[in-house]
Protein backbone atom coordinates (compact mmCIF):
# COMPACT_ATOMS: atom_id res chain seq x y z
CA UNK A 1 0.00 0.00 0.00
CA UNK A 2 2.86 2.34 0.89
CA UNK A 3 4.48 1.54 -2.45
CA UNK A 4 1.32 2.45 -4.31
CA UNK A 5 1.08 5.77 -2.44
CA UNK A 6 4.77 6.50 -3.16
CA UNK A 7 4.37 5.70 -6.85
CA UNK A 8 1.25 7.85 -7.02
CA UNK A 9 3.12 10.77 -5.48
CA UNK A 10 5.97 10.46 -8.03
CA UNK A 11 3.48 10.20 -10.88
CA UNK A 12 1.58 13.25 -9.64
CA UNK A 13 4.81 15.25 -9.43
CA UNK A 14 5.77 14.32 -12.96
CA UNK A 15 2.30 15.00 -14.38
CA UNK A 16 1.95 18.39 -12.69
CA UNK A 17 5.42 19.51 -13.67
CA UNK A 18 4.59 18.40 -17.22
CA UNK A 19 1.39 20.48 -17.25
CA UNK A 20 3.24 23.63 -16.32
CA UNK A 21 5.27 23.45 -19.51
CA UNK A 22 2.16 24.02 -21.62
CA UNK A 23 2.41 27.79 -21.09
CA UNK A 24 5.47 29.85 -22.07
CA UNK A 25 7.86 30.01 -19.16
CA UNK A 26 8.13 33.48 -17.68
CA UNK A 27 10.88 34.77 -15.47
CA UNK A 28 9.09 37.43 -13.48
CA UNK A 29 12.28 39.19 -12.45
CA UNK A 30 14.37 38.71 -15.56
CA UNK A 31 14.46 42.25 -16.93
CA UNK A 32 14.00 44.12 -13.69
CA UNK A 33 10.89 45.78 -15.01
CA UNK A 34 8.57 44.38 -12.37
CA UNK A 35 7.49 46.88 -9.78
CA UNK A 36 5.17 46.32 -6.94
CA UNK A 37 4.43 50.00 -6.61
CA UNK A 38 2.53 50.43 -9.84
CA UNK A 39 4.26 53.47 -11.21
CA UNK A 40 2.23 56.45 -10.13
CA UNK A 41 5.19 57.84 -8.23
CA UNK A 42 7.71 57.06 -10.94
CA UNK A 43 6.68 59.73 -13.40
CA UNK A 44 9.78 61.73 -14.27
CA UNK A 45 9.65 65.46 -14.57
CA UNK A 46 11.91 65.57 -17.62
CA UNK A 47 12.60 63.27 -20.50
CA UNK A 48 16.23 62.80 -19.49
CA UNK A 49 15.24 61.18 -16.23
CA UNK A 50 13.54 58.25 -17.92
CA UNK A 51 14.69 54.73 -17.20
CA UNK A 52 13.74 51.30 -18.50
CA UNK A 53 10.52 51.46 -16.52
CA UNK A 54 9.25 54.68 -18.09
CA UNK A 55 8.95 55.49 -21.78
CA UNK A 56 8.33 58.92 -23.26
CA UNK A 57 6.65 59.06 -26.66
CA UNK A 58 7.55 62.41 -28.18
CA UNK A 59 5.75 64.24 -31.01
CA UNK A 60 6.53 63.03 -34.54
CA UNK A 61 7.41 66.54 -35.64
CA UNK A 62 7.06 70.15 -34.68
CA UNK A 63 7.90 71.34 -38.19
CA UNK A 64 5.63 73.83 -39.96
CA UNK A 65 3.63 71.98 -42.60
CA UNK A 66 3.30 74.84 -45.10
CA UNK A 67 5.81 74.96 -47.95
CA UNK A 68 6.02 78.66 -48.75
CA UNK A 69 8.26 78.15 -51.77
CA UNK A 70 5.70 76.06 -53.63
CA UNK A 71 3.89 77.54 -56.60
CA UNK A 72 0.58 76.41 -58.09
CA UNK A 73 1.74 76.24 -61.70
CA UNK A 74 -1.75 75.84 -63.14
CA UNK A 75 -2.04 79.21 -64.86
CA UNK A 76 0.46 78.36 -67.61
CA UNK A 77 -1.64 75.47 -68.86
CA UNK A 78 -4.75 77.70 -68.83
CA UNK A 79 -2.83 80.30 -70.86
CA UNK A 80 -1.86 77.68 -73.46
CA UNK A 81 -5.45 76.49 -73.71
CA UNK A 82 -6.63 80.08 -74.25
CA UNK A 83 -4.28 80.36 -77.22
CA UNK A 84 -5.77 77.27 -78.85
CA UNK A 85 -3.01 74.83 -77.89
CA UNK A 86 -4.39 71.35 -77.32
CA UNK A 87 -3.06 68.44 -75.31
CA UNK A 88 -1.51 65.44 -77.08
CA UNK A 89 -3.13 62.14 -76.06
CA UNK A 90 -1.47 58.72 -75.76
CA UNK A 91 -2.43 55.04 -75.64
CA UNK A 92 -2.18 52.92 -72.49
CA UNK A 93 1.46 52.32 -71.44
CA UNK A 94 2.72 53.93 -74.70
CA UNK A 95 4.81 56.99 -75.42
CA UNK A 96 4.80 57.10 -79.22
CA UNK A 97 2.75 59.86 -80.94
CA UNK A 98 -0.53 58.44 -82.29
CA UNK A 99 -1.46 59.07 -85.93
CA UNK A 100 -4.60 60.96 -84.88
CA UNK A 101 -2.46 63.35 -82.81
CA UNK A 102 -0.07 64.36 -85.61
CA UNK A 103 -2.34 67.15 -86.86
CA UNK A 104 -2.78 68.61 -83.34
CA UNK A 105 0.96 68.55 -82.89
CA UNK A 106 1.52 70.41 -86.16
CA UNK A 107 -1.00 73.11 -85.15
CA UNK A 108 0.59 73.39 -81.70
CA UNK A 109 4.07 73.79 -83.18
CA UNK A 110 2.88 76.85 -85.09
CA UNK A 111 1.38 78.35 -81.95
CA UNK A 112 4.47 77.94 -79.77
CA UNK A 113 7.08 78.99 -82.33
CA UNK A 114 9.64 81.42 -80.87
CA UNK A 115 8.18 81.01 -77.38
CA UNK A 116 9.68 79.38 -74.31
CA UNK A 117 7.38 76.74 -72.89
CA UNK A 118 7.17 73.61 -70.76
CA UNK A 119 5.82 70.18 -71.65
CA UNK A 120 4.12 68.32 -68.80
CA UNK A 121 3.69 64.57 -69.17
CA UNK A 122 0.69 62.95 -67.46
CA UNK A 123 -0.56 59.41 -66.88
CA UNK A 124 -3.67 57.49 -65.94
CA UNK A 125 -3.89 55.94 -62.49
CA UNK A 126 -2.44 52.57 -63.53
CA UNK A 127 1.18 51.60 -63.03
CA UNK A 128 3.25 52.36 -59.98
CA UNK A 129 4.75 55.64 -58.82
CA UNK A 130 8.13 55.89 -60.51
CA UNK A 131 7.24 53.99 -63.66
CA UNK A 132 4.28 56.30 -64.23
CA UNK A 133 6.46 59.37 -63.81
CA UNK A 134 8.97 57.97 -66.27
CA UNK A 135 6.17 57.16 -68.72
CA UNK A 136 4.88 60.75 -68.43
CA UNK A 137 8.38 62.04 -69.10
CA UNK A 138 8.87 59.77 -72.13
CA UNK A 139 5.60 61.15 -73.50
CA UNK A 140 6.80 64.71 -72.99
CA UNK A 141 10.10 63.78 -74.64
CA UNK A 142 8.29 62.25 -77.64
CA UNK A 143 6.38 65.51 -78.11
CA UNK A 144 9.60 67.51 -77.74
CA UNK A 145 11.33 65.39 -80.41
CA UNK A 146 8.36 65.87 -82.77
CA UNK A 147 8.35 69.63 -82.16
CA UNK A 148 12.10 69.88 -82.83
CA UNK A 149 11.49 68.04 -86.10
CA UNK A 150 8.93 70.76 -86.89
CA UNK A 151 11.64 73.39 -86.46
CA UNK A 152 11.13 74.39 -82.82
CA UNK A 153 14.36 75.12 -80.94
CA UNK A 154 15.14 72.41 -78.36
CA UNK A 155 16.51 75.12 -76.04
CA UNK A 156 13.06 76.72 -75.77
CA UNK A 157 11.49 73.55 -74.35
CA UNK A 158 11.69 72.28 -70.78
CA UNK A 159 9.99 69.12 -69.57
CA UNK A 160 8.57 67.60 -66.45
CA UNK A 161 6.38 64.69 -65.51
CA UNK A 162 3.47 64.87 -63.09
CA UNK A 163 2.71 61.15 -63.19
CA UNK A 164 -0.90 60.61 -62.18
CA UNK A 165 -0.90 63.76 -60.02
CA UNK A 166 -2.70 66.10 -62.42
CA UNK A 167 -5.79 64.28 -63.73
CA UNK A 168 -8.39 66.24 -65.69
CA UNK A 169 -10.97 63.48 -65.34
CA UNK A 170 -11.68 61.54 -62.15
CA UNK A 171 -14.25 58.96 -63.23
CA UNK A 172 -13.20 55.33 -63.43
CA UNK A 173 -14.00 54.81 -67.13
CA UNK A 174 -11.91 54.05 -70.21
CA UNK A 175 -12.82 57.45 -71.71
CA UNK A 176 -11.70 59.23 -68.59
CA UNK A 177 -8.39 57.36 -68.27
CA UNK A 178 -7.71 58.10 -71.98
CA UNK A 179 -8.04 61.86 -71.29
CA UNK A 180 -5.46 61.65 -68.50
CA UNK A 181 -2.79 60.01 -70.70
CA UNK A 182 -1.59 63.27 -72.22
CA UNK A 183 1.08 65.93 -72.60
CA UNK A 184 0.09 69.52 -71.74
CA UNK A 185 1.80 72.64 -73.04
CA UNK A 186 2.51 75.25 -70.38
CA UNK A 187 3.38 78.82 -71.30
CA UNK A 188 5.01 81.24 -68.86
Amino acid at each position, binding site marked *: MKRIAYMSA*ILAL*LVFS*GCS*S*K*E*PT*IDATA*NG*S*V*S*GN*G*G*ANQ*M*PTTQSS*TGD*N*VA*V*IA*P*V*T*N*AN*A*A*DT*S*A*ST*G*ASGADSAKAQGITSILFDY*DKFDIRDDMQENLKINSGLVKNKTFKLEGNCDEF*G*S*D*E*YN*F*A*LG*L*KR*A*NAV*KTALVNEGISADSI*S*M*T*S*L*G*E*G*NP*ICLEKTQECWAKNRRVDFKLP
Partner: protein
Amino acid sequence: MRYWILFILSIITVWGTDTTLEVTKNVGALPKFVIEDGSVVSGLETKKFHKMLSADMKVVSLFEVDDTYAVQTFESSQPSLSHKEAGYILRYRLVNDGNGGFKAEVKLLQNSLELFTKTYLLKQSEMLVFLSHSIAYDINAKMGGAPLEWMKRKVLLVRLSGARRSEIVAADYTLAYQKVILSGGMYGFAKWANREQTDFYYTALSDFKPTIYKANLASGVKRSIVSSDGMAVCSDVSEDGSKLLLTLAPNGQPDIYLYDLMTNEKKRVTDYSGIDVNGQFMGSDTIAFVSNRFGNPNIFSKKIDSSAINQLVYEGKNNSSFTTYRHLLVYKTRDGDGFDLRLASLNNSGSRRLTSSGDNDYPRFSYDGEAVLHIKQEGSRSLVGIIRLGLNKSFTFPLHVGRIQSLDW
Protein backbone atom coordinates in the same frame (compact mmCIF):
# COMPACT_ATOMS: atom_id res chain seq x y z
CA MET B 1 15.41 -1.13 -5.61
CA ARG B 2 16.55 -1.75 -9.19
CA TYR B 3 12.94 -2.42 -10.12
CA TRP B 4 12.08 1.00 -8.73
CA ILE B 5 14.80 2.67 -10.80
CA LEU B 6 13.65 0.84 -13.93
CA PHE B 7 10.05 1.79 -13.20
CA ILE B 8 10.87 5.51 -12.73
CA LEU B 9 13.07 5.52 -15.86
CA SER B 10 10.25 3.98 -17.91
CA ILE B 11 7.83 6.64 -16.60
CA ILE B 12 10.26 9.43 -17.49
CA THR B 13 10.73 7.94 -20.98
CA VAL B 14 7.00 7.69 -21.59
CA TRP B 15 6.38 11.14 -20.09
CA GLY B 16 9.17 12.60 -22.22
CA THR B 17 7.52 11.23 -25.33
CA ASP B 18 4.23 12.78 -24.26
CA THR B 19 5.92 16.11 -23.59
CA THR B 20 7.17 16.23 -27.14
CA LEU B 21 3.66 15.58 -28.34
CA GLU B 22 2.32 18.29 -26.06
CA VAL B 23 4.82 20.83 -27.36
CA THR B 24 3.75 20.05 -30.90
CA LYS B 25 0.13 20.51 -29.90
CA ASN B 26 0.93 23.78 -28.18
CA VAL B 27 2.06 25.31 -31.45
CA GLY B 28 -1.62 25.64 -32.38
CA ALA B 29 -2.93 26.38 -28.90
CA LEU B 30 -1.85 29.84 -27.87
CA PRO B 31 -2.50 31.08 -24.33
CA LYS B 32 -5.60 33.22 -23.94
CA PHE B 33 -4.87 36.91 -23.53
CA VAL B 34 -7.24 39.66 -22.41
CA ILE B 35 -6.93 43.41 -22.04
CA GLU B 36 -8.66 45.25 -19.23
CA ASP B 37 -9.33 48.92 -18.67
CA GLY B 38 -8.20 49.91 -15.19
CA SER B 39 -8.61 53.67 -15.73
CA VAL B 40 -10.16 55.64 -12.87
CA VAL B 41 -12.54 57.20 -15.40
CA SER B 42 -13.23 54.94 -18.36
CA GLY B 43 -14.87 56.38 -21.44
CA LEU B 44 -14.59 56.71 -25.21
CA GLU B 45 -10.86 57.38 -25.12
CA THR B 46 -9.98 54.45 -22.86
CA LYS B 47 -12.27 52.13 -24.87
CA LYS B 48 -10.62 53.26 -28.08
CA PHE B 49 -7.26 52.49 -26.51
CA HIS B 50 -8.52 48.99 -25.69
CA LYS B 51 -9.26 48.43 -29.39
CA MET B 52 -5.82 49.66 -30.40
CA LEU B 53 -4.11 47.35 -27.92
CA SER B 54 -6.25 44.39 -29.01
CA ALA B 55 -5.26 44.95 -32.64
CA ASP B 56 -1.58 45.31 -31.81
CA MET B 57 -1.53 42.24 -29.57
CA LYS B 58 -3.07 40.20 -32.39
CA VAL B 59 -0.22 41.31 -34.62
CA VAL B 60 2.23 40.28 -31.87
CA SER B 61 0.93 36.73 -32.51
CA LEU B 62 2.05 35.18 -29.22
CA PHE B 63 -1.46 34.81 -27.79
CA GLU B 64 -5.05 34.05 -28.58
CA VAL B 65 -6.37 37.57 -28.01
CA ASP B 66 -9.90 37.89 -26.63
CA ASP B 67 -10.81 41.46 -27.59
CA THR B 68 -13.92 41.80 -25.40
CA TYR B 69 -13.78 44.99 -23.38
CA ALA B 70 -13.88 44.77 -19.59
CA VAL B 71 -13.17 47.07 -16.67
CA GLN B 72 -11.25 46.02 -13.59
CA THR B 73 -9.56 47.95 -10.79
CA PHE B 74 -5.99 48.58 -11.86
CA GLU B 75 -4.49 47.33 -8.59
CA SER B 76 -6.46 44.06 -8.55
CA SER B 77 -4.53 40.86 -9.10
CA GLN B 78 -7.67 39.10 -10.32
CA PRO B 79 -9.29 39.22 -13.77
CA SER B 80 -12.73 40.71 -14.30
CA LEU B 81 -15.64 38.25 -14.14
CA SER B 82 -15.86 37.94 -17.92
CA HIS B 83 -12.16 37.15 -18.23
CA LYS B 84 -11.90 34.28 -15.76
CA GLU B 85 -10.45 31.93 -18.38
CA ALA B 86 -7.63 34.25 -19.37
CA GLY B 87 -4.05 33.01 -19.12
CA TYR B 88 -2.65 36.52 -19.34
CA ILE B 89 -4.16 39.89 -18.43
CA LEU B 90 -2.82 43.18 -19.78
CA ARG B 91 -4.27 45.99 -17.70
CA TYR B 92 -3.87 49.70 -18.27
CA ARG B 93 -4.70 52.90 -16.46
CA LEU B 94 -4.94 55.85 -18.84
CA VAL B 95 -4.86 59.35 -17.40
CA ASN B 96 -5.20 62.62 -19.29
CA ASP B 97 -2.27 64.73 -18.06
CA GLY B 98 -4.07 68.04 -18.63
CA ASN B 99 -1.31 69.23 -21.01
CA GLY B 100 -2.51 67.59 -24.22
CA GLY B 101 -0.96 64.23 -23.42
CA PHE B 102 -1.55 60.99 -21.55
CA LYS B 103 0.12 59.00 -18.85
CA ALA B 104 -0.44 55.26 -19.10
CA GLU B 105 0.40 52.71 -16.44
CA VAL B 106 0.49 49.15 -17.71
CA LYS B 107 0.93 45.74 -16.15
CA LEU B 108 0.91 42.18 -17.40
CA LEU B 109 -0.47 39.52 -15.06
CA GLN B 110 -0.30 35.75 -15.14
CA ASN B 111 -1.93 33.77 -12.36
CA SER B 112 -2.12 36.93 -10.19
CA LEU B 113 1.62 37.44 -10.64
CA GLU B 114 2.87 40.72 -12.11
CA LEU B 115 5.21 39.83 -14.95
CA PHE B 116 5.74 43.34 -16.26
CA THR B 117 4.88 46.90 -15.27
CA LYS B 118 5.77 50.12 -17.02
CA THR B 119 4.68 53.75 -17.17
CA TYR B 120 4.42 55.61 -20.47
CA LEU B 121 4.24 59.34 -21.03
CA LEU B 122 2.66 60.48 -24.28
CA LYS B 123 3.24 64.10 -25.22
CA GLN B 124 0.40 64.44 -27.77
CA SER B 125 -2.93 62.72 -27.25
CA GLU B 126 -3.54 62.30 -31.00
CA MET B 127 -0.58 59.91 -31.06
CA LEU B 128 -2.37 57.40 -28.82
CA VAL B 129 -1.83 54.61 -31.34
CA PHE B 130 1.97 54.96 -30.94
CA LEU B 131 1.48 54.39 -27.22
CA SER B 132 -0.35 51.16 -28.02
CA HIS B 133 2.45 50.09 -30.40
CA SER B 134 5.08 50.76 -27.73
CA ILE B 135 3.22 48.67 -25.16
CA ALA B 136 2.75 45.78 -27.61
CA TYR B 137 6.45 46.00 -28.49
CA ASP B 138 7.44 45.80 -24.81
CA ILE B 139 5.12 42.86 -24.08
CA ASN B 140 6.52 41.03 -27.11
CA ALA B 141 10.08 41.70 -25.95
CA LYS B 142 9.24 40.53 -22.43
CA MET B 143 7.76 37.30 -23.77
CA GLY B 144 10.69 36.67 -26.14
CA GLY B 145 8.74 37.12 -29.37
CA ALA B 146 10.27 37.64 -32.82
CA PRO B 147 11.79 41.10 -33.49
CA LEU B 148 9.11 43.78 -33.58
CA GLU B 149 11.07 47.03 -33.76
CA TRP B 150 9.20 47.92 -36.95
CA MET B 151 5.98 48.29 -34.99
CA LYS B 152 7.24 51.52 -33.39
CA ARG B 153 8.61 53.03 -36.59
CA LYS B 154 7.05 55.78 -38.65
CA VAL B 155 5.69 55.45 -42.16
CA LEU B 156 6.24 58.25 -44.65
CA LEU B 157 3.76 58.64 -47.49
CA VAL B 158 2.79 61.10 -50.19
CA ARG B 159 -0.93 61.42 -50.80
CA LEU B 160 -2.56 63.23 -53.68
CA SER B 161 -4.82 65.97 -52.32
CA GLY B 162 -6.03 67.41 -55.66
CA ALA B 163 -4.84 68.23 -59.16
CA ARG B 164 -1.19 69.38 -58.88
CA ARG B 165 -1.42 69.10 -55.13
CA SER B 166 -0.01 66.52 -52.74
CA GLU B 167 1.04 66.26 -49.12
CA ILE B 168 3.80 64.45 -47.29
CA VAL B 169 2.41 62.61 -44.30
CA ALA B 170 4.03 60.85 -41.34
CA ALA B 171 2.04 57.90 -39.99
CA ASP B 172 2.25 54.80 -37.81
CA TYR B 173 2.40 51.32 -39.36
CA THR B 174 -1.41 50.97 -39.36
CA LEU B 175 -1.79 54.46 -40.95
CA ALA B 176 -4.35 55.22 -38.20
CA TYR B 177 -2.26 58.23 -37.12
CA GLN B 178 -1.55 60.67 -39.94
CA LYS B 179 0.20 64.00 -39.60
CA VAL B 180 0.81 66.27 -42.58
CA ILE B 181 4.45 67.35 -42.47
CA LEU B 182 4.61 69.22 -45.77
CA SER B 183 1.85 70.76 -47.88
CA GLY B 184 1.25 73.66 -50.22
CA GLY B 185 2.72 72.29 -53.43
CA MET B 186 3.21 69.10 -55.38
CA TYR B 187 5.60 66.56 -53.93
CA GLY B 188 6.54 62.99 -54.61
CA PHE B 189 8.69 60.08 -53.51
CA ALA B 190 9.21 60.81 -49.82
CA LYS B 191 11.85 58.47 -48.40
CA TRP B 192 13.52 58.16 -45.00
CA ALA B 193 17.13 59.35 -45.13
CA ASN B 194 18.42 57.30 -42.22
CA ARG B 195 17.61 54.42 -39.95
CA GLU B 196 16.77 56.81 -37.09
CA GLN B 197 14.05 58.47 -39.22
CA THR B 198 15.21 61.98 -38.34
CA ASP B 199 15.50 63.18 -41.95
CA PHE B 200 13.82 62.40 -45.25
CA TYR B 201 14.21 62.99 -48.98
CA TYR B 202 11.43 64.13 -51.28
CA THR B 203 10.96 65.57 -54.75
CA ALA B 204 9.45 69.02 -55.19
CA LEU B 205 7.60 69.08 -58.49
CA SER B 206 6.51 72.71 -58.24
CA ASP B 207 10.09 73.94 -58.73
CA PHE B 208 11.28 74.97 -62.21
CA LYS B 209 13.09 71.65 -62.43
CA PRO B 210 12.12 68.61 -60.33
CA THR B 211 14.39 68.87 -57.30
CA ILE B 212 15.29 66.38 -54.59
CA TYR B 213 15.45 67.92 -51.11
CA LYS B 214 16.62 66.52 -47.80
CA ALA B 215 14.52 67.77 -44.88
CA ASN B 216 14.74 67.40 -41.12
CA LEU B 217 11.58 66.02 -39.56
CA ALA B 218 11.86 67.94 -36.30
CA SER B 219 12.82 71.37 -37.62
CA GLY B 220 11.50 71.29 -41.19
CA VAL B 221 14.83 72.73 -42.42
CA LYS B 222 15.53 71.53 -45.95
CA ARG B 223 18.40 71.64 -48.42
CA SER B 224 18.57 70.90 -52.12
CA ILE B 225 20.44 67.73 -53.12
CA VAL B 226 20.08 67.54 -56.91
CA SER B 227 17.83 68.79 -59.74
CA SER B 228 17.15 67.30 -63.14
CA ASP B 229 15.07 68.39 -66.07
CA GLY B 230 12.12 66.04 -66.46
CA MET B 231 12.48 63.77 -63.44
CA ALA B 232 14.39 63.52 -60.16
CA VAL B 233 13.55 60.80 -57.68
CA CYS B 234 15.35 59.37 -54.67
CA SER B 235 14.49 55.69 -55.07
CA ASP B 236 16.58 54.13 -52.31
CA VAL B 237 19.03 54.94 -49.54
CA SER B 238 21.93 52.61 -48.69
CA GLU B 239 21.86 50.95 -45.26
CA ASP B 240 24.50 53.33 -43.90
CA GLY B 241 22.75 56.36 -45.44
CA SER B 242 25.82 57.43 -47.43
CA LYS B 243 24.63 56.58 -50.95
CA LEU B 244 21.42 57.12 -52.90
CA LEU B 245 19.94 55.47 -55.93
CA LEU B 246 18.32 58.21 -58.00
CA THR B 247 16.27 58.30 -61.16
CA LEU B 248 17.34 61.35 -63.17
CA ALA B 249 16.56 62.39 -66.72
CA PRO B 250 18.94 65.20 -67.74
CA ASN B 251 18.10 64.70 -71.44
CA GLY B 252 14.54 63.46 -71.10
CA GLN B 253 15.82 59.93 -70.67
CA PRO B 254 15.07 58.35 -67.26
CA ASP B 255 18.02 56.32 -65.99
CA ILE B 256 19.35 55.19 -62.64
CA TYR B 257 22.27 56.96 -60.98
CA LEU B 258 24.32 56.18 -57.88
CA TYR B 259 24.82 59.34 -55.82
CA ASP B 260 27.56 59.55 -53.19
CA LEU B 261 26.56 62.01 -50.45
CA MET B 262 30.16 62.31 -49.21
CA THR B 263 31.58 63.47 -52.54
CA ASN B 264 28.36 64.73 -54.20
CA GLU B 265 29.36 62.72 -57.26
CA LYS B 266 26.84 60.80 -59.33
CA LYS B 267 27.48 57.80 -61.52
CA ARG B 268 25.11 56.57 -64.22
CA VAL B 269 24.26 52.91 -63.57
CA THR B 270 21.83 52.16 -66.45
CA ASP B 271 21.72 53.53 -69.99
CA TYR B 272 18.79 51.89 -71.76
CA SER B 273 16.87 54.05 -74.27
CA GLY B 274 13.47 53.12 -72.79
CA ILE B 275 12.49 53.34 -69.13
CA ASP B 276 14.79 52.35 -66.25
CA VAL B 277 13.51 53.44 -62.84
CA ASN B 278 13.13 52.53 -59.17
CA GLY B 279 16.65 51.38 -58.36
CA GLN B 280 16.86 49.47 -55.07
CA PHE B 281 19.99 48.28 -53.32
CA MET B 282 20.38 44.51 -52.96
CA GLY B 283 23.52 44.37 -50.86
CA SER B 284 26.42 46.74 -51.49
CA ASP B 285 27.25 45.99 -55.12
CA THR B 286 23.96 44.95 -56.77
CA ILE B 287 20.76 46.81 -57.59
CA ALA B 288 17.31 45.74 -58.71
CA PHE B 289 15.26 48.06 -60.91
CA VAL B 290 12.18 48.31 -63.14
CA SER B 291 12.70 48.45 -66.88
CA ASN B 292 10.49 48.13 -69.95
CA ARG B 293 13.37 46.74 -72.02
CA PHE B 294 11.32 43.64 -72.94
CA GLY B 295 8.19 45.65 -73.80
CA ASN B 296 6.44 45.64 -70.41
CA PRO B 297 7.59 46.87 -67.01
CA ASN B 298 9.52 44.11 -65.27
CA ILE B 299 12.18 43.71 -62.58
CA PHE B 300 15.86 43.21 -63.39
CA SER B 301 19.11 43.24 -61.49
CA LYS B 302 22.68 44.24 -62.28
CA LYS B 303 25.99 44.72 -60.53
CA ILE B 304 26.72 48.43 -60.15
CA ASP B 305 30.07 48.08 -61.95
CA SER B 306 28.93 45.66 -64.64
CA SER B 307 26.82 46.04 -67.76
CA ALA B 308 25.27 42.54 -67.53
CA ILE B 309 21.52 42.58 -66.79
CA ASN B 310 19.55 39.72 -65.21
CA GLN B 311 15.78 39.36 -65.37
CA LEU B 312 14.51 38.63 -61.86
CA VAL B 313 10.81 37.99 -62.40
CA TYR B 314 9.21 35.73 -64.98
CA GLU B 315 5.56 35.89 -63.94
CA GLY B 316 3.09 38.56 -65.03
CA LYS B 317 3.26 41.37 -67.58
CA ASN B 318 3.16 44.43 -65.35
CA ASN B 319 5.68 44.08 -62.54
CA SER B 320 6.40 47.72 -61.83
CA SER B 321 6.31 47.79 -58.04
CA PHE B 322 8.73 46.05 -55.68
CA THR B 323 10.83 46.32 -52.52
CA THR B 324 14.13 44.75 -51.52
CA TYR B 325 15.88 43.71 -48.34
CA ARG B 326 19.43 42.52 -49.01
CA HIS B 327 18.96 39.44 -51.27
CA LEU B 328 15.16 39.33 -50.85
CA LEU B 329 12.61 40.82 -53.23
CA VAL B 330 8.87 41.34 -52.81
CA TYR B 331 7.08 42.37 -55.98
CA LYS B 332 3.60 43.00 -57.30
CA THR B 333 2.35 40.79 -60.10
CA ARG B 334 -0.98 39.97 -61.68
CA ASP B 335 -2.32 36.65 -60.36
CA GLY B 336 -5.72 35.73 -61.81
CA ASP B 337 -8.07 38.68 -61.45
CA GLY B 338 -6.04 40.71 -58.98
CA PHE B 339 -2.53 41.85 -58.18
CA ASP B 340 -0.70 39.79 -55.59
CA LEU B 341 2.61 40.17 -53.83
CA ARG B 342 5.26 37.49 -54.18
CA LEU B 343 8.53 36.90 -52.35
CA ALA B 344 11.67 35.88 -54.24
CA SER B 345 15.37 35.62 -53.44
CA LEU B 346 18.50 36.31 -55.46
CA ASN B 347 19.88 33.06 -54.07
CA ASN B 348 17.04 30.77 -55.15
CA SER B 349 14.76 30.31 -58.12
CA GLY B 350 11.00 30.28 -57.62
CA SER B 351 8.80 32.55 -55.56
CA ARG B 352 6.25 32.42 -52.74
CA ARG B 353 2.85 34.10 -52.92
CA LEU B 354 2.27 36.41 -49.95
CA THR B 355 -1.28 37.64 -50.58
CA SER B 356 -4.38 35.82 -51.73
CA SER B 357 -7.12 38.42 -52.21
CA GLY B 358 -7.71 41.90 -53.58
CA ASP B 359 -5.28 44.14 -55.44
CA ASN B 360 -2.03 44.57 -53.53
CA ASP B 361 0.48 47.31 -54.18
CA TYR B 362 3.20 49.54 -52.64
CA PRO B 363 5.11 46.72 -50.91
CA ARG B 364 7.72 48.05 -48.48
CA PHE B 365 10.11 45.97 -46.38
CA SER B 366 10.69 47.05 -42.80
CA TYR B 367 14.28 48.23 -42.30
CA ASP B 368 15.13 44.87 -40.66
CA GLY B 369 13.45 42.70 -43.30
CA GLU B 370 11.07 41.17 -40.73
CA ALA B 371 7.81 42.46 -42.22
CA VAL B 372 6.31 43.88 -45.40
CA LEU B 373 3.85 46.77 -45.40
CA HIS B 374 1.51 47.17 -48.37
CA ILE B 375 -1.76 48.67 -49.55
CA LYS B 376 -4.65 46.38 -50.39
CA GLN B 377 -7.80 47.22 -52.34
CA GLU B 378 -10.72 44.84 -51.87
CA GLY B 379 -13.70 46.08 -53.85
CA SER B 380 -14.45 49.53 -52.49
CA ARG B 381 -12.45 48.90 -49.29
CA SER B 382 -8.91 50.18 -48.90
CA LEU B 383 -6.71 48.44 -46.36
CA VAL B 384 -3.17 48.66 -45.11
CA GLY B 385 -1.63 45.22 -44.76
CA ILE B 386 1.29 43.91 -42.76
CA ILE B 387 2.92 40.58 -43.59
CA ARG B 388 5.16 39.00 -40.97
CA LEU B 389 7.41 36.88 -43.17
CA GLY B 390 8.97 34.79 -40.38
CA LEU B 391 5.57 33.83 -38.94
CA ASN B 392 3.84 33.51 -42.32
CA LYS B 393 0.96 35.65 -41.04
CA SER B 394 -0.69 38.77 -42.39
CA PHE B 395 -2.96 41.40 -40.90
CA THR B 396 -4.99 44.26 -42.34
CA PHE B 397 -6.30 47.55 -40.99
CA PRO B 398 -8.94 49.85 -42.53
CA LEU B 399 -7.38 52.68 -44.48
CA HIS B 400 -8.64 56.24 -44.90
CA VAL B 401 -5.92 58.15 -46.64
CA GLY B 402 -7.04 58.98 -50.19
CA ARG B 403 -4.84 58.20 -53.15
CA ILE B 404 -1.25 57.33 -52.26
CA GLN B 405 1.62 58.33 -54.54
CA SER B 406 4.49 56.77 -52.58
CA LEU B 407 5.09 54.92 -49.34
CA ASP B 408 8.21 54.38 -47.25
CA TRP B 409 8.79 52.70 -43.89
